[in-house]
């Protein structure tokens, strides 16, 4: 009956996208006249999910699920959906959610629509709007299955509070993590990732060379932002491939995207259109990026960026 949301956590703490997906689930549950149940695998404090609208939290504590396993996690979510009789199951757009969602869908004989951007147009039949053509268009898609799996696009619905008292219930599914084994994980834990970041500072070929990234790093640090780059920058090895954003790189759905020395080619814009506010710093007033941005400064990055960082530090000190 209830709407089931999969809430991601890391190191026993819920991620911000877990809050957003619960809030979104609450929105759908209201439209359907039902409640939200969250499934939390080795997650955080259940009452925290109540803040955003979960009435029940199914808590799974299991050592075999310590590391992420798409197969294992998908199976647990499917078992929870069956136990709850949920006809709507909601995941996010994180790499792990996108990995497991198709498996959940097959398991539940459910249709799956990813990159959903807002509450459904209708719930019976269920029609959702989602990004297609790498953010160049939307599709309104109708589910024709009994059970439906929705992937919520990051930062599309927002984190909204719907204070509810959440009851925690322990859930003990059968666990089978399948044939894929994790040997090791390399992950910088001290850096904000592009996927999690609220603010992303991105540099392009206009920065001339890798030695000039110091000022980008300073700006990013001042803003608590993640660092990204255009494709040529990663192709030339100035920055790691993991920072390449765009149609063939990572998508960026941040609150604020600051593009420095990036021309704004269609393939670049496709990947960052999911961001709310875009700022461009470019010395060419004709750069196409200005047509896609909210705010811009026509100027030399080597002058503007250090000033920007300096003034931001002063601003932060005043508003602290």
């Amino acid at each position, binding site marked *: 009956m209830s709407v089931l949301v999969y809430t991601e956590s890391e190191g026993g703490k819920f991620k911000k996208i877990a809050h957003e997906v619960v809030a979104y689930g609450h929105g759908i549950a209201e439209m359907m006249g039902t409640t939200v149940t969250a499934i939390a695998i080795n997650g955080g404090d259940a009452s925290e999910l109540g803040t955003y609208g979960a009435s029940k939290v199914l808590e799974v504590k299991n050592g075999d699920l310590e590391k992420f396993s*798409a*197969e294992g996690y998908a199976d647990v979510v499917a078992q929870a959906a069956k136990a709850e009789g949920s006809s709507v199951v909601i995941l996010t757009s994180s790499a792990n959610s*996108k*990995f*497991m*969602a*198709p*498996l959940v*869908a*097959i398991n539940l004989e*459910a*249709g*799956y629509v*990813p*990159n959903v951007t807002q509450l459904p147009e209708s719930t019976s039949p269920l029609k959702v709007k989602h990004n*297609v*053509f*790498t953010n160049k*268009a*939307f*599709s309104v*898609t*109708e*589910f*024709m299955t009994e059970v439906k799996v929705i992937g919520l696009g990051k930062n599309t619905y927002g984190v909204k509070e719907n204070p509810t008292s959440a009851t925690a219930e322990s859930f003990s599914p059968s666990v089978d993590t*399948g*044939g*894929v*084994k994790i*040997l090791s*994980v*390399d*992950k*910088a834990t001290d*850096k904000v*990732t*592009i996927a*999690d970041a609220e*603010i992303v500072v991105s540099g392009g070929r206009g920065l001339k060379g890798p030695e000039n990234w110091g000022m980008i790093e300073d700006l990013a640090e001042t*803003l608590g932002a993640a660092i990204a780059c255009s494709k040529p920058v990663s*192709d030339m090895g100035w920055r790691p*491939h*993991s920072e390449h954003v765009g*149609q*063939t790189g990572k998508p960026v759905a941040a*609150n*604020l995207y600051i593009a420095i020395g990036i021309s704004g080619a*269609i*393939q670049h814009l*496709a990947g960052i259109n999911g961001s709310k*506010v875009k*700022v461009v710093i470019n010395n060419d007033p004709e750069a196409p990026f*200005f047509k896609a941005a*909210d*705010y*811009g*400064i026509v100027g030399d990055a080597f002058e503007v960026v250090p000033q920007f960082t300096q*003034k*931001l530090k002063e*601003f932060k000190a005043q508003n602290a």
Partner: protein
Amino acid sequence: MKILVCISHVPDTTSKINFTDGDTKFDTNGVQFVINPNDEFGLTRAMWFKEKQGASVHVATVGGPETEPTLRKALAIGADEAIRVNTPATDGYSVAKQLAGVVKDGGYDLVIGGRESIDYNGGMVPGMMAKLIGANFINTCIGLEIEGNQATVVREIDGGKENLEASLPLVIGGQKGLVQESDLRIPNMRGIMQARSKPLHVIEPVDVAAETQAIRFEKPAPRGTVKLVDNVDDLINLLHNEAKVI
């Protein structure tokens, strides 16, 4: 080792996206179609297995006759045989179901798909297919080695990477990193000539009901014009008071 590379036939990355028939159909007018970039990285990695480990490489697509030039391009790059399942690609599930049939019939050890197609961005076909045939599945692969029956895989995760191991049969969702941009191959004249005589099998689809249906497309609302400022103080002020993002 038998490898199948699943190829999605997609509009070139520079395409303008428009719709026809009352915004219910993608307008292919003047659109150039290409091998989905994620699939091209996978295909190029498959060429390495062919050349270094003697693998045979087939490519498959689910689509109408208009997708054949894309398959021929894959043959020109070096695939041995192509398969086209003769039905329009509707939803991700039905495509996965068609491909699952191809994989079962062909007895492939390794199936390489892309992390997502750049048209419908479903990111679902390889995962669904793997689950349907009961094979191991790893997504967002940026490194792949095969030794006997065992695959070692590097997967990109948010903020880093993961090293994994799985036995064949395996389905992967690949992307850049499987090979580098500079490894991609532009078909040469000899490849193009050979591709003409390589087998392109057209097979009839299995019966399957779509699970989702696109009923209408929309384009993003045109945006307001950019606000240009000439100093960083004004910018900080706008970001704080107007956009409320800092």
